[in-house]
């Protein structure tokens, strides 16, 4: 066999193996989506959105309590996490820059990003739930905020650093004070990137179950008082899916379907923004 033939064969083998691996990976993804859609759409109906949870065996049961609880817990977490994350990212990129403090914050936030979310849940249990004496929506939001923070902080930091320094200098050269340079020029230049970070951060926490088990816990009925235990799609899905009742299991599939579609669309929107920015 000549050297060239050997090279062509090796190339062929490597290409085939990597293509098969990629197809297997994608295959699982579509399999999951397929099962979700098949079982989820089947379980979808109007009552899912209009009715609260009910004991097993009742016709009129739905996920309204979990949907509203989920929106409130994630919404409050976003309300806290986004401004904090963006401001902290601004500190890193614009003020801290390469200083020791800024580099330390970057390292710690990278570690936090890979921390198991159940540990964050246990932490919030210890500092919020235990002293209060009961689970609450607030505790759930706090746990999700902590998980969201490093994601938004790092994307903001990265996106702001992508804004060319000559653009900042040009604004300074016109006599702009630093905070105006940041708000009027740097933020504008990084708008799409920061928005992507926010969307991906929200999408990440919206799918969390473990930290909520320790914090907001669950409620089978509609509750809008953040001081009390609150239902969420993820925990509700866990409870219903592991129950022995068939109608509850169907609701569990519906919850899984709604949650996946929500997170999938957040991710897609985030990626579209990122692509548009790169396209420029």
């Amino acid at each position, binding site marked *: 066999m000549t050297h060239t033939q050997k090279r062509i064969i090796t190339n062929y083998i490597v290409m085939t193996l990597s293509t098969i691996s990629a197809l297997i990976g994608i295959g699982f993804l579509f399999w999951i989506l397929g099962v979700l859609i098949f079982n989820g759409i089947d379980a979808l109906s109007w009552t899912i959105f209009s009715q609260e949870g009910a004991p097993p065996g009742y016709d009129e049961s739905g996920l309204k309590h979990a949907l509203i609880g989920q929106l409130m817990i994630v919404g409050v977490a976003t309300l806290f996490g986004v401004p904090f994350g963006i401001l902290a990212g601004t500190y890193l990129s614009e003020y801290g820059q390469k200083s020791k403090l800024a580099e330390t914050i970057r390292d710690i936030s990278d570690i936090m990003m890979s921390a198991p979310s159940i540990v964050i849940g246990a932490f919030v249990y210890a500092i919020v739930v235990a002293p209060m004496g009961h689970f609450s929506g607030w505790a759930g939001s706090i746990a999700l905020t902590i998980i969201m923070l490093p994601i938004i902080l790092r994307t903001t930091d990265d996106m702001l650093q992508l804004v*060319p320094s*000559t*653009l*900042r*200098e*040009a*604004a*300074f*050269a*016109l*006599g*702009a*004070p630093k905070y*105006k340079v940041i708000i*009027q*020029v740097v933020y*504008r*230049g990084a*708008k799409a990137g920061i928005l992507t970070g926010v969307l991906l951060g929200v999408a990440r926490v919206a799918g969390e179950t473990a930290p909520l088990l320790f914090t907001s816990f669950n409620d089978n009925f509609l509750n809008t008082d953040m001081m009390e235990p609150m239902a969420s799609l993820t925990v509700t899905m866990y409870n219903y899916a592991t129950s022995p009742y068939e109608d509850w299991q169907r609701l569990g599939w519906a919850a899984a379907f709604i949650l996946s579609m929500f997170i999938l669309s957040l991710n897609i929107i985030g990626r579209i923004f990122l692509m548009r920015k790169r396209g*420029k």
Partner: protein
Amino acid sequence: MATIVDIKEEKALEVQNFEFTYDGADAPSIKTLNMPIAKNSVTALIGPSGCGKTTLLRSFNRMHDLYPGNEYAGEILFKNRNILSKNEDLIKLRIQIGMIFQKPTAFPMSIFDNVAYGMRLQGIKNKTELKDRVEKALQDAAIFKEVKERLKHDANGLSGGQQQRLCIARAIAVEPEVLLFDEPTSALDPISTAGIEELVVELKERVSIVIVTHNMQQAARVSDYTGFMYLGELIELGRTEEMFVTPKEKLTEEYITGKFG
């Protein structure tokens, strides 16, 4: 010692025993430099890469202060005050001494908002005044005709040459007394370059101009005075038409005849 021609005009800036050291550097990048800059004329700074011409230019509006650890020594006099003094109000200074950069720096906003940016910083809110001054600045920067139909469009949609003229419009809109050009045409095609050069010559009636350039023909075309810098020192400052024909210093002659650089 540098050979410095006698300047008859009033002086816009006067550099005296100036020294500049970058953060962490062992030696100063500019060493005891003395140089007058004539009012309402164009002074070109030429010299090989790393000679300190951009460093000097960026000292005139204290751009180096944006990064920690850089050090100035000596004096730069502007309107009878030393702008290197610790009490200098940098915001006011940068309004009076504007800057145009190597690459166009259009902000991510509309053409109108770009030009209005500096005026808005100064608190001008009156819509008719803003509109009049934006149009005037665009006319003075010879770009109004091309953009008057799309003032609300994103400035990043303009070509490189148009963006550079937009940046000039933005800089002159706040009516500075001195304009600093840092190789303003090095990223542009020949036609856009000719447009910017024409503009520089026209603008000197209203502002004093200092321009850093790598291109000696450009220095010869646009400037009244030329300063030749080498290894952080000013070697010679002369009238442009004399310096390119009969340089007084041997180093200057070698540089402009292409023996090094």
